[in-house]
């Protein structure tokens, strides 16, 4: 296992400590693995979190205009309720707190329990659940779609709304609106290694990729041969566009790398995506290209579209200043 780490068991605490050292405006609460803003203001607090291994998510989005606290679990594992409660406390300035949860049963259970407990302590807590991944369909046999990179847009929208002084209900409504308009779909070209496990959880052949793989390496919809950038754009977009009618609308586009895919390839992919969307009469209002929601050193990508109205555009453009996303 070639990783720049020390003890596999310490990766989460060391990465967060290293982050807090790089960004003095962030506060790191040891053991509970919470990153929060040092500078507080009276506003609705926004808390996100989940398993580690998705860096810069989630701590990288803590800062003005986005999150007030991010709570980290072990690699690919939901944080426990005690940690989440600490995140809620850090984010709370008396105006209530919104939890942004990705739809994984571990996160649902742990955040749900934390919410109950925080409410018992008199903090008003609301939550939204992101389920943007169209890869695996909602069915009677599942608890619903997975939450992936589209979550970053939810951080942005909710964070902007909160920063602009809106109430908890308004912030929640904006987040819900974003969620309703976001769809994502990804593919992976290689596996990743959990530090504590030391070897890949699965293997993809030399000439094999997997369409729809999750950001924890959960199986996707199809294993297939290597695709060109043009084919990749077509395959991923067609699933997204079949799921929500984007025709004639303006969108925010995120071209996300899963960890070890170079920017070169993401830009090439973006070039293809733009062609396809333009041909379909979908106008790209703003594009984000980079590693926003990763899966350790997995190689691959995901595409996210968020359909915009005037309010979402305004919130998207609202300034933010976090380690991983800055809008000036």
């Amino acid at each position, binding site marked *: 296992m070639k990783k720049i780490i020390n003890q596999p068991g310490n990766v989460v605490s060391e990465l967060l400590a290293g982050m807090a050292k790089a960004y003095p405006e962030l506060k790191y609460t040891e053991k509970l693995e919470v990153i929060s803003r040092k500078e507080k203001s009276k506003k609705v607090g926004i808390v996100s979190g989940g*398993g580690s291994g998705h860096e810069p998510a989630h701590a990288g989005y803590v800062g003005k205009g986005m999150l007030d606290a991010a709570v980290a679990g072990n690699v690919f594992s939901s944080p426990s309720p005690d940690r989440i409660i600490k995140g809620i406390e850090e984010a709370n300035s008396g105006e209530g707190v919104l939890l942004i949860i990705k739809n994984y049963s571990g996160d649902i259970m742990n955040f749900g329990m934390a919410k109950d407990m925080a409410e018992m302590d008199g903090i008003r807590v609301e939550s939204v659940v992101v389920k943007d991944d169209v890869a695996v369909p909602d069915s009677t046999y599942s608890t619903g779609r997975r939450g992936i990179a589209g979550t970053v847009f939810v951080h942005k929208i909710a964070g902007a709304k909160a920063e602009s002084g809106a109430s908890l209900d308004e912030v929640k409504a904006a987040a819900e609106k974003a969620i309703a308009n976001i769809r994502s779909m990804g593919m992976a070209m290689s596996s990743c290694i959990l530090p504590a496990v030391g070897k890949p959880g699965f293997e993809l052949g030399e000439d094999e990729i997997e369409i729809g793989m999750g950001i924890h390496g959960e199986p996707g919809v199809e294993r297939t041969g290597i695709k060109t950038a043009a084919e990749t754009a077509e395959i991923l977009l067609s699933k997204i566009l079949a799921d929500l009618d984007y025709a004639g609308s303006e969108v925010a586009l995120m071209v996300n790398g899963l960890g070890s895919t170079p920017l070169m390839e993401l830009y090439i992919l973006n070039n293809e995506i733009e062609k396809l969307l333009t041909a379909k009469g979908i106008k790209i209002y703003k594009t984000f290209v980079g590693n926003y929601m990763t899966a350790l050193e997995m190689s691959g990508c995901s595409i996210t579209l968020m359909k915009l109205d005037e309010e979402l555009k305004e919130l998207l453009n609202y300034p933010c200043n976090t380690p991983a996303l800055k809008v000036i």
Partner: protein
Amino acid sequence: MGFRLSSKDYAEYLRLAAAKIHENGDYVTALDSATGDGDHWSNINMGFEKIVEEIGELEKMSLFDEFKKIGMIMMSVIGGSSGVLYGSAYMGAAKVLKDKEFIDNQAMCDVLAAMLEAIMTRGNAQPGFKTMIDCLHPAVMCYKDCIAQGLPEMETLSLVKKAAVDGAMSTANMEAVRGRACYQANKGVGHLDPGAVTMSYQIETLMDYISSSL
């Protein structure tokens, strides 16, 4: 007279369970990797390591406090789905042990039943969903049956163990419907559920440990 497990005995069992889990790292990880995200073993193992570290404390406590503390440790150290489920299970079981000095046959059955109920409530899941419930549920049913039928403890313990192990095995033929593994729909068929397997390790170890004391 039947068995009477003290909090010190239970702590001793935990040490054995920790060893059992520790030994099976590669196997359990492979199971969670096949259908899920591969973290189940490393998390539950970390939880049990922490418990072993705290054993000096745990064995001095009342059963009630011991179970509560185990629940806290599991919830916060294991994390993920299984952390909050085991946390809830031990919290639920603690209530059954309030003011008890020993766990006897009936109490053991009540403990497992309380754990089952807590897990089903927290996870909003049923038997057949390909989870740890598919190990624990048949074990609890079996335990209740044995007691109703008045079977000897030795036989009971061995039947409960068998029910747990068979239950874990039965997950091979199930489609996943809860937990991260659920997103693979019928892709999971053929693979055992990792959470069911680690649950069976615990029940198996516990039944064997009690038997050996009889």
